């Protein structure tokens, strides 16, 4: 017996009290996920949310779905394995900018290439919050902190460009403070057949208090669907840094998932063993 729909957004919350700081953008991400799922009528048990480590990694426990809080950087391979093993599930991976673009960067690139039917939300606050304020791969070159007083002195990773260059089939950026746009974007990503990136500007009021201004600065809907990857890249490069929207969506083949065995298990085994006879 699956659950009777419809459910309300709040029904997707587990009731566990988040560890996040007051004003954290991640509350908005959590809310937007529940607002995306509710109108889709997805039974909660058919949704699995997989995360890594960091503030973002806590999000599965706050949802009333199935969840997997794994290792730092490894949410995408877990989500890929789960989706290929259980194509019936709706699988969402969640991570932070450090989780996905630094320690998990290899998985990000190759998951874009592989194109499993999962959605990735990257909660980007441009800082390592859980370890109390070190620069992340999306930090500005001059973001000064005790560990790197001059700042990282490296250009930030552009997750959208990296995704486009790696063959992702759905690429978008949202903002935790723009709930309606973000919820719609996450829904579109979940409904997209293939790997979908939703990078979410998610301010960290504790270690990046200046990000509380994002509310005024983020320009919604600037990124519009492009007709080609080249055009999508150009749009990402030319758009203001704090702009949101779905910039790319395309159909691509999905990787092979498990299926029904082609026959009786014992018969298949006998056929296999016959291959060993010299």
């Amino acid at each position, binding site marked *: 017996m699956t659950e009777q729909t419809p459910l309300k957004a709040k029904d997707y919350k587990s009731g566990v009290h988040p560890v996040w700081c007051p004003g954290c953008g991640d509350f908005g991400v959590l809310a937007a996920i529940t607002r995306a799922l509710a109108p889709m009528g997805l039974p909660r048990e058919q949704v699995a949310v997989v995360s890594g480590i960091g503030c973002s990694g806590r999000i599965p426990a706050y949802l009333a779905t199935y969840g997997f809080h794994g290792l730092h950087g490894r949410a995408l391979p877990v989500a890929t394995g789960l989706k290929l093993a259980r194509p019936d599930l709706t699988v969402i991976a969640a991570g932070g900018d450090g989780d996905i673009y630094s320690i998990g960067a290899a998985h990000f690139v190759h998951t874009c290439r592989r194109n499993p039917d999962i959605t990735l939300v990257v909660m980007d606050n441009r800082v390592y919050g859980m370890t109390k304020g070190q620069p992340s791969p999306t930090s500005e070159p001059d973001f000064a902190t005790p560990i790197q007083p001059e700042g990282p002195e490296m250009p930030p990773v552009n997750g959208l460009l990296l995704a486009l260059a790696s063959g992702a089939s759905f690429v978008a950026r949202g903002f935790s403070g723009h709930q309606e746009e973000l919820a719609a974007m996450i829904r579109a990503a979940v409904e997209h057949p293939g790997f979908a990136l939703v990078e979410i500007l998610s301010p960290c009021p504790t270690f990046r208090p200046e990000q509380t201004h994002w509310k005024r600065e983020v320009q919604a809907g600037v990124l519009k669907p492009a007709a080609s990857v080249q055009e999508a890249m150009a749009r990402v490069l030319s758009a203001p840094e704090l702009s949101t929207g779905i910039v790319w969506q395309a159909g691509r083949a999905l990787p092979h998932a498990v299926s029904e065995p082609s*026959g009786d298990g014992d018969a298949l085994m006998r056929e296999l063993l016959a291959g060993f006879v010299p």
Partner: protein
Amino acid sequence: MPRTISRDTISLALTGSGGTGMLTAGDLLLRAVARNGLYGLLTRSVGPQIRGGESAALLRIAHYPLETHDDTFHVLFAADWKNFDRFVGEIHLDEDVLVIMDEAARDVPAVVEETSGEVFRLPLHATAKETGGRVNMVGVGFLGRLLGMGKEELADIIRWFFSRKKRDRFIEPSIAAMEAGFDLAAPHVEKGALLAAPSATERAAAKNRWLISGNQAVATGFLQAGGRFAAGYPITPATDMLEWLGPRLPKFGGVLVQAEDELAAINMVLGASYGGLPAMTATSGPGLSLMVEGIGLAVAAEIPALIVDVQRIGPSTGIPTKSEQGDLMLAINAAHGDAPHLVLAPDCVTDCIRTTAWALHLAERLQCPAIVLSDQKLGQMHSIIDAIEMPPWKAGRKVQERCEGDYARYSLTDDGVSPMALPGTPGCMHTIDGLEHDEHALPSSRVEDHAAQLEKRRQKLFLMEDWPDEDMTHWADVQGGGEVAVLTWGSAAGPAREAVRMAAEEGLHVKHISMRLLFPPQRKRLSKLLDGVKRLIVVEQTHSGQFLHYLKSWFDLPEVVISCRRPGPRPITPRQVLRALREACRITGKEIERVCQ
């Protein structure tokens, strides 16, 4: 070589620089041997080069089942002597080794001058050239005839080999070269074949034999037990297991993913297993090192997973193409924190099927990772074995079918195993976690929760000591008896079993124990087996004695313990173990931990 017809086992080394096709010649001869109803095994000694390095096909044939190479090689077929020095240290040649070499060969090594056996200087390359075939096929014909094989059956195998590879154009010249080699051997078979001919009964048994490698056998055990998902990253010497499994899994409804690295591979396995499918990865030492964090997560979050480590020589990149048992400590101690998990080891090619199936069964039953330690020697050994009944063990975990009210994923139960609600089960939604957690899987840093969950995860494994014997029959293999025992794990069992048989012929009766379940340690069971044993020989392929130290830290051992060990790539041989057995039988008084090389 003073040849006698009645040998019941013979060992041949086929050597040549890469590209001479010696490995193919070994494959073809092994198949010919198998079709004649004889037993045999084939290993390859190759350098790390993709092409052009040294290569040797090491072939042993016998009228009885084989698990290991002999101490010496009786026949050396050398297509050339290039790079011969690189692996001659691994191959002990008999003092009257029969040498078959090209008459025009240069750089002839001392072995040719030193042997008291025959040396055949033959126009191997010229014959190959005349026929349009290659020197390896000349070798197949020549050696095939010396081994008592028929011309037509060798031709059949050549046809089968090339048509399977869709290289039909090689068939005719290869058969021509083989036939020329066969004819070249005519004057040399007058003194008799190298091996006693198989009887009619033996020939009839050929259809009940399998020609299989350890890596294929592991994959077979996984499929037999119900394995459905695999992920891996290419690494020598485990790659061929993934290559074999990849195209076969879809028939069983499964899928294999080539991951971007070993970190991804283990995490994909955990994702698939969390979804409910029995899942595995295969790797070697460097990959196991990378997977350690994932193994810890599987312990903490209680996710079944099968991790096969086909060990190669370490540390670091080590010697990728050669065998050692040096990953034992890593496997047992994998993961930071107290992270108990299963560690098992197959002890022969046939057992790769059984132990892998049992390991998957146990991983699923106990909801934890199981590391299966194979090695390059077992994994890449192609062996003729008796066909076996498939083992009974199947993957199957305790599942929570539905929930009414409260569901606690990590509930404390008598046996430490709590029912797992798979995604899709209504009402049981929860988040599994690598963070320490309470019974409901909620993160917890409380003293009581940590203590309770640590004990739960330990207890479910250590209760295996109290499982009924009939559920634990596979934990060790025991043969023979007496006051002297030899204790091995993994591929070291092969030479030990043969040594024990040779010792019996000398009137020395000893016991052999091969441990297949290494963790959790079966203390009561080993104590029972060691009851009455006064001297113990511990055999392993490591430099430092990892197995010995593992035994000393978990078990009560007899007073006299002799460590018989050597690192790779020189293999442990039957007579090395036999010498240790003889010494053990002579020892009087207390002599703790003598090391024999």
